[in-house]
Each structure stands twice: as C-alpha cells, then as structure tokens.
C-alpha cells in the first residue's frame, strides 16, 4: 500500500503540469486561522518538570550555527567544542544535535567533532541566494559531503518556485539529494520570501516529494526568518505527508529563535500538530546560535533556583 502510494506520488514530479495540479490541489491555508492557532499554542504554560524536560530536548535539537563571511577555523573549533559540551560547569548538560557551517569550514569542523556523535551540517547550493547554475550547486554539495558533512542544508530556487517552474525546483532537489549520497538533505524553503502560507505548504510538499529528509524555514539571511505559524504549516505538511506516503520528514525552523520561551512554544506546536513522534532531534531541529546560551541559563536556573549572569556561559 505504502509502496504503491509512494510510486504514485513519484509520478507527480514528471512535469510542471502534474506538479501544479497536485500542489494547487492541496487544501488552502487560512492566514488568520493559522496565526490564531499558533498564537493560542503560544499561551500554553510549561512549568517545572515539563520545562526541564523541554529545555534538555531543545538543547539536543540545536543546530549550532555560524554562517558569517568572517568565520575562521579558530571560531569554528570553538563552536565545535561548545557543541560537544555546551556547559563546562555541568557535564550533565546534553550535547547539541549538530554544528552548521559553510563548506570551506567543514574539514575543520569534521576534525573537531570526530567521535562526538554531534552531526556536521553544511549549507550548500550557493547559500543563501541559491542563484548559481545547477552544476555549481552540485559541486558545492559534493565537496561538502566529501569533506565530512553528514547533513546538507540546501536552498531552493525561490525565483523558479514563485514563477511556477515547479519541475525545475523539483529536479534540482532530486539532483542535490543524489549528490548528498548518505548525507541527510535539509531543504530550505526561505519562507520569508514565499510570502503566503499557501506557498509554504506547496513548497513543503514539493521538497518532500523530491526526497528532502528535512524541510527548513530559512537561511537566516533575509529579514523574515522562522515564525511560529510558518512552522505550524510545515508541521501540518509533514504530518499529512507521512499519513499519505508512510515516510517521515523532519522540520527545522531557523533564524530568530533566541529565547527558551520561544523554543518551548515551538515544541508545544510540534507536540500538538505533528505529534510526539517529531519530538526528537532526528525529526526536529532549531537552527540557532544565541538560543543555546539562553537554554543553558534557564537550565541552570531550574537546577539551582537562581540566575547566573551571562558571564557564566561561554561565548562561541
């Protein structure tokens, strides 16, 4: 049944027309309703034991990220050390899920993370604009994988998507997925540039149909990054996709999530939208950098009953 369903869905990618028919046949998203639902879930009150559990889970879900032109091997090594052991004062604090860097920094990070169990993600495919020829994107991807990345964060071509050239976007994802080999592929939709929730839902399905292992909101390089309602719509998409095909796809909001309070809101939305199966670092990640220190600070507060100053937590 699942195999038949999957192959039926595989045919959709053959042409723009078939993709258009399918993607525009998905139920629409009512903007007001989706935002209200996200806002309501944001009022859930997560306290005491639930908060402690959520903070540890959130730490384990962080893709600790540095994507700056000014990145240096020293900076990346420091980040990797922090990823392995986020709180030097507390060995019980869990390690993060992954470190996320530019392809040129992958060799340094691979060396620094060896044997730690922390995944190594690299952005590729002409991040963040995606405006490069396909063969350059493929080469970018292959180089990152060859240097030791086991997760690739690619960007879709928003220009192609917005002008309705769905097959072009689909084929590109398929090609990058192929170039990834065993590495996991996260497909960045750049939802801030897609503008509508209908587009977010369609792009999510497009990325999943083309074989993405994760769908990710943003590069963090455009003004609007992850939002709660966008993540809600993407979580509905992965839930519905699994129901239809049997394949589970992960979700990664990235950019703009800076506080523990925000991170917990996201976990509540995961819990009450896609469900408990997604409450795992294999299926949900936070693309973030400053978030980690706030999580550690709140964790220490819960454990000790008082706040420590920011000087007690390491800068990356």
């Amino acid at each position: 049944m699942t195999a038949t369903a999957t192959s039926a869905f595989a045919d959709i990618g053959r042409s723009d027309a078939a993709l258009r028919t399918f993607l525009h046949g998905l139920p629409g998203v009512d903007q007001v309703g989706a935002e209200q639902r996200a806002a309501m879930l944001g009022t859930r009150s997560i306290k005491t034991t639930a908060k402690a559990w959520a903070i540890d889970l959130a730490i384990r879900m962080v893709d600790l990220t540095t994507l700056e032109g000014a990145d240096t091997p020293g900076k990346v090594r420091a980040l990797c050390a922090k990823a392995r052991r986020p709180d030097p004062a507390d060995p019980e604090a869990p390690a993060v899920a992954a470190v996320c860097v530019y392809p040129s920094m992958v060799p340094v990070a691979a060396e620094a993370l060896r044997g730690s169990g922390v995944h190594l993600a690299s952005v590729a495919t002409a991040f963040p604009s995606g405006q490069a020829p396909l063969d350059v994107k493929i080469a970018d991807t292959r180089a990152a994988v060859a240097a030791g990345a086991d997760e690739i964060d690619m960007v879709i071509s928003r220009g192609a998507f917005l002008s309705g050239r769905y097959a072009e976007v689909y084929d590109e994802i398929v090609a990058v997925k192929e170039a990834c080999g065993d590495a996991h592929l996260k497909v960045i939709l750049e939802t801030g540039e897609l503008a509508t929730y209908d587009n977010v839902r369609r792009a999510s399905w497009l990325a999943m149909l083309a074989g993405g292992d994760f769908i990710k909101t943003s590069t963090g390089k455009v003004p609007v990054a992850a939002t709660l309602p966008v993540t809600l719509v993407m979580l509905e998409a992965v839930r519905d996709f699994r129901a239809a095909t049997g394949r589970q796809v992960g979700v990664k909001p990235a950019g703009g999530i800076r506080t523990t309070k925000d991170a917990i809101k996201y976990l509540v939305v995961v819990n009450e939208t896609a469900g408990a199966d997604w409450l795992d670092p294999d299926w949900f990640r936070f693309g973030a950098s400053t978030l980690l220190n706030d999580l550690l600070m709140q964790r220490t507060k819960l454990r000790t009953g008082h706040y420590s100053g920011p000087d007690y937590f390491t800068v990356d």
Partner: protein
Amino acid sequence: MFEYAPAPESRSIVDIKPSYGLFVNGEWVDGENRNKTVNPATEEVLAEVAWATEAEVDSAVGAARTAYEKVWSRTSGRERAKYLYRIARIIQERSRELAVLESIDNGKPIRESRDVDVPLVAAHFFYYAGWADKLGYAGFGPSPRPVGVAGQVIPWNFPLLMLAWKIAPALACGNTVVLKPAETTPLTALLFAEICQEADLPPGVVNIVTGAGDTGHALVSHPGVDKVAFTGSTDVGRAIARAVAGTRKKLTLELGGKAANIVFDDAPIDQAVEGIVNGIFFNQGHVCCAGSRLLVQESVYDEVLASLKRRMALLRVGDPLDKNTDIGAINSAAQLDRIRTLSEIGASEGATQWSPPCSLPDRGFWFAPTIFTGVTQAHRIAREEIFGPVLSVLTFRTPAEAVEKANNTPYGLSAGVWTDKGSRILWMADRLRAGVVWANTFNKFDPTAPFGGYKESGYGREGGRHGLEAYLDV
C-alpha cells in the same frame, strides 16, 4: 511524551466572602432568602447568596427609578461616558481577579476567561462609553431619549460578558438598570457591583439582584420596569414575552440556537477543523451560538472527520484554573443531566457516538467532548439545543442542500461557512437565516458587531450601533 506539568492560576487573588447581599441603591442589603453557589469543578460551596424576593426586587426597581429621574437622565452623555470609561479601566486593572472568579464560579477554563471573556467585557464598556456623547449621530434622531429603567436577566454561560452586553449600552444611553445574574453564577456580577462603587457611579444607576426564576419573574413583570432584556433559553424567553405582552415595556430576547457550521470541499481543512472545535467545544459548548451541527460536504467527509478526531484527542479536559485546560466543567448538575439525556437519545436513535479517550475528575460536573456521526435532520440531537460539548455531524452534496439543511431549524442565531471561494461566502450569507454568519472563523465577538437572532432565537440586536436602539426611546 511531552507531559505538561500542572500550571494552576493562583486563586489567592480573589477574596470570596462567605455571604453576599443584594446591591441596591449603591449599598449592600441583606436578602431574606439565601442559597448557596458552588464551584462546578469541585462541588465545593463558594458562598451564600441572597435570592431576592418580590419586595426586594421592588425596592431595587424603586432605587433605579429614583436614580433615573433625579440623576442619570439629567447627566450629560459626556459625563456618563466618564463613568463608563472608568468602569472599563477598573475592569482591566482587576482583570485577573475577574477571570479567576469567573472560572471558579462558572467552570470555564481560565484561558478563556482570561483571553476572551474579560477582555471583551472591558472592550464593551470602552465601546459604549464612546457612544454616550454621540447618540445624536447614531441615526435615531438628533437627541434620542433613554427608555427609563431596564430590567435585565442574564444566563450563566458568560456571566460577566452578558452583564457587559446589557449594562454598557443601557448606561451609555442614559437608562438605569436592575440586573439579575443566573443563580449558578452570581459572583462576578457582585464583584462588578464593587467596581461600580469604586468608580463612584451614582447610587441606584446599577442594581444587582441575585436569585433564580422567581426573582427574574418578579423583575420582568414589575410595572416600574420600562425595558426588559433577556438572554437565555427559548422556553423562558417565551414566558417573558407573555409576561410583558400588553404592557408598554420594550423587549429584546436573545435565545437558543442550533447553528450549522458548513464545511465545503475547498475549505482550508486544518483551520476549518480548528473552527469546528472552537465552534462546539469553546466554553464547554455552553454557547447559544455554538456550531452544534456540522455540515460537511461529502467529498471531504472522511478527511475532515479524521482530522477532527485527531484534534479532539488533544483537547485537555480538567481543572478550569489550569492554564493549559481547554475544556472545563459543565456549569451545573442540572445541565449535565440534560446533556446526558440528549446524548443517550442520540445513541438510541441510531447515531454513532465518539469521544476521545480522556479521564474526567471524580468530583464536579464533567462531560467528555463528544461527536455524533450518522446524524440526520430527523434526529433530536440535530434539532434540539444541547448546550454542551456535543457535536452532531451531517453531510451535504451541493450548496443549495447545505442552505436548506442549515435553515431547517426553528432557531437562527448563527452559522459558519468554510470555503476558499469568496463569492460562495456571499452567496451563502445571503441565504442563511441566521443573525450572524461567520466566514472561515467561528465564535468571534466584537463590541462593534451587532448580535442577535432570527425566528426562535429571539429579536433585537445587541452590540454595535444597532445595540443602542433597544435602550433608546425610538
């Protein structure tokens, strides 16, 4: 599993007195008869409350008459507005106290009393405060006069909000009021009386007489009352209409409903499911305009039902004061009986009953969120108002059939339409015989929007500019 730890709102902010009198002429007077009000979530007795006698109602109406003639009808609109603004601000300042007390006395979740009821209460007073000095521009003549003394009887489902719907326009237009809250939920109205004192409202402008049916009857049939406003059941509404027939009294009635929530196959399904849940499970379904009949287009029936069941399994039923509770307690043993009886009838008439697994507290009045599928227009659960968390699911094939089924009810308070097609929303709204038609949303309230019914859901409108008419001599 992500288990949310208990997150109870503290009740230390409210100070419930062991016993309450009647609020007449700006003062507290002991009542002759007394009865208890309980917390429906625990059956704990909260306080003793007076049940006003005919003589006590008479003295309240007398106080309102004196205040009307000597003070309030001679107070300028601008001055009346100042009092209403002051009341609105005090409501905001004491919002947590009001929300906690409402949840304790009524059983509704604190999330709703905090985020819906109390903010709307303040908004109503702010809105009608704005009208008080602009009545000449409301379309009822250059200088419309108030009616006089209003006798107002309100239900237990939104105790404070219904009080605001009644008192704010009445005072803005220059009337004085005698208000009777429901016997199971008197406490927030009594706290509101304190707020009137705090706002220095002249004595007698607002009088609160607590009690049950006899008190209500004494109030609406009192010859000194010029205007009767009632929100509640259709049966009681009929009795009130009979009681005021042949008198000079003006009457508005806001009664029951059996609203259709209509989902077309092009609807935004996830949001429609939220709307279905909000339509019937908001406030435990104790909502006169609840979307208690779900009409789903046959082509998306399976998809909608599967989504609805998955969503219902997430509803958190329990302690109304827990900030994560979605569904609180049924307001009274009597109401719980009615819900149980009608549900049993639904099952015995052949509809299929389903509830998600959920554990209910041992004490208090509780009913699990429930849907009935395979319901037809001929079933009693598709016709009678249950006033509880019970949804009847029906199907339709064409827009015309949806309209026909939606209108096939003696009620006509509200309806919901879910579709991505704007023209169809307008086409439906033209044909649905309902006072409110929500499009791609449900149970949305705003002080600027008139609310009221067709047919046996009553007459008159509350809210907005239209809501002024009931309290002006026009």
